[in-house]
């Protein structure tokens, strides 16, 4: 048995060397969680600050000044230009120096005091539609609050209010997102990297020598996946640290529980990786299968970005077999709610069942002989 351990040991050392020698891939793998937390963290924020506002006020009066001051005093807005004619706005939009224009009608105060519906025109840079509508919503909120304050009737300022202003998504979106990101990084390293690395061994023909040796398939599998498991856990730590340092994402529950769940989830991914490598005819096919079969569902069908509740019923059924869906519930529960096993045992049980099924399939698919 002693020599067997040393064979496994040698295998793990060899695998570590492959990972360490491939500098490009290693750099990507190490920086990825960091970059993803930061990029996605900012990108997925529905919250926008520093909206550059152009004010077009043909006939300045006390009402327009008061509303303009509201915008000037609001930290989200920065008035970059004020003009009496609309000509100024267009070039600023084209140059990308303005995000939103607020155009008052002539004799704004007079119109308000008469109680007739008064139209305010808001023009947003909608090259990114989401950002555009969010900015418009902010502006509407400012206008609505002004209108409430001066006690005008509900009809006085007619701008359709948007629901979005009722959210306050600034930090919450990052909080919800980080658990999903951890799942994504774990899937990437376990399922994708393992299947690539194992199918490379097949493609190069080195597997042929490994098979004609006393190594059993489980030793080859174990030697192959152990280094990736370590790398994956290291990445969980990086992602958590980055989330905490950059976005002050809270961590309310047990770190040990989260790491244990990560190991469980990683093993599901590793089994998938081995299974994919065993079935894929080439390295390229394995990579594509891993991307389509694990990364896509992980990103789209796990509740990471799109809430599962908003999916059509049949797609909701599909999400039940996506491991990331369960892991994200666990990670969010531990990180954001601080709950423990009492609340998460069901999800953990589902992952365990998935692991057992996939592991059996993986070991069976990895035959000690060629077909």
């Amino acid at each position, binding site marked *: 048995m002693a*020599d*067997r351990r*040393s*064979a496994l*040991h*040698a*295998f793990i*050392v*060899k695998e570590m*060397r*492959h990972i360490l*020698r*491939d500098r490009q891939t290693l750099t990507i793998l190490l920086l990825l969680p960091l970059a993803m937390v930061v990029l996605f963290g900012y990108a997925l924020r529905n919250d926008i600050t520093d909206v550059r506002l152009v004010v077009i006020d043909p006939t300045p009066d006390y009402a327009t000044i008061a509303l303009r001051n509201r915008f000037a005093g609001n930290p989200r807005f920065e008035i970059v230009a004020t003009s009496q004619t609309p000509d100024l706005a267009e070039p600023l939009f084209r140059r990308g120096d303005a995000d939103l224009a607020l155009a008052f009608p002539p004799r704004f105060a007079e119109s308000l005091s008469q109680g007739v519906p008064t139209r305010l025109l808001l023009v947003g840079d909608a090259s990114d539609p989401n950002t555009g509508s969010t900015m418009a919503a902010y502006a509407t909120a400012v206008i609505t609050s002004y209108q409430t304050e001066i006690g005008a009737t509900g009809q006085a300022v007619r701008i359709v209010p948007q629901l979005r202003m009722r959210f306050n998504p600034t930090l919450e979106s990052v909080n919800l997102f980080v658990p999903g990101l951890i799942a994504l990084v774990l899937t990437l390293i376990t399922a994708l990297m393992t299947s690539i690395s194992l199918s490379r061994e097949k493609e*190069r*023909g*080195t597997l*042929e*020598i*490994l*098979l*004609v*040796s*006393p*190594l059993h398939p489980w030793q080859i599998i174990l030697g192959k996946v152990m280094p990736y498991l370590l790398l994956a856990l290291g990445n969980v730590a990086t992602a958590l640290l980055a989330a905490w340092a950059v976005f002050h994402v809270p961590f309310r529950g047990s770190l040990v529980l989260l790491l244990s769940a990560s190991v469980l989830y990683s093993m599901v991914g590793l089994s998938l990786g081995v299974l994919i490598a065993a079935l894929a005819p080439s390295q390229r096919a394995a990579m594509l299968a891993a991307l389509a079969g694990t990364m896509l569902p992980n990103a789209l069908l796990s509740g990471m970005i799109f809430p599962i509740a908003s999916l059509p019923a049949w797609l909701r059924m599909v999400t039940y077999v996506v491991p990331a869906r369960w892991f994200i519930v666990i990670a969010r529960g531990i990180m954001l709610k601080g709950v423990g096993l009492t609340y998460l045992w069901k999800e953990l049980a589902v992952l365990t069942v998935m692991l057992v099924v996939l592991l059996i399939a993986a070991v069976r698919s990895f035959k*000690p*002989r*060629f077909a």
Partner: protein
Amino acid sequence: MTDHAVASSRAPLEVRGVSRRFEETVALSDVSFAVNAGELFGLVGPDGAGKTTLFRILTTLLVPDSGTATVLGLDVVRDLWAIRSRVGYMPGRFSLYPDLSVEENLSFFASVFGTSIDEGRAIIAPIYDQIEPFKDRRAGALSGGMKQKLALCCALVHCPEILFLDEPTTGVDAVSRREFWDLLGALKKSGLPILVSTAYMDEATRCDRVGLIQRGRILAVDAPAAIAARYPNPLIAVHANERHKLIQSLRDYQHAKSVYPFGDEVHYSDARAAKAMDDIVAELRTYLAGSGFTDLRVKPISAGVEDAFMELMGQPEATVRAAA
């Protein structure tokens, strides 16, 4: 050797009636031969003859559809694990890790077999001494010949009791090929039985015995000289100014049995096995001179292994089979 012999005294490798097909393709058809103790046995045949399939069956990677094979007295189907720790195998493509150094590759394969470079040193020394100066170089940066030597070291480091080398010289330059066969000759002296396959017929002469394989069938098994001696017809080497035209003219000659290029000459065999060689040479010279060839050289030769193989391979499926 009889069937009553105890396992330890049996031939290190015995193949009996092995057949294997892949869907509709017949890869091996009723293959039988044996490799004796301390023998360097060459399996010679063109690409696609079934050599690699046979190697994979013998190294337990594939199961034959029918027939049996024993390696070191162990059944290749039943005794999978016992065989795997006792054989050395170098697959067709030199299977090394290009990102690992020479030493790391060797040390890895040693560990996989539960040994170390130091323990295997005695057997690999003649080969490893040549590549040791480059032990820190990555295997991917080695020349073809050096890769081949490293792969051989990796297959030998655990002191196997039999060595399987599948086309070790394919894609390697001529000098390295010659060196490699010298190394095999040296290894053979240690008593290690070796089964080696090649598509280069000139390498057959370096073996103790060879098996000629074509389209999944063994055409002949014998010592190279014995195979050469079986050549049935008068054989003549011809040289002339225009080789291409020469081949055509010789093929058109009424008594031609076979004509094929051989180096910068053309080998011509005559269909009249009983006719005196001198007469044939004289007639041929007259025929060729009459066809306008100059710079003409026509001389009788005795057939080599390659001629014998050309002869055998040209025959239809029903073939000569020597007793193993």
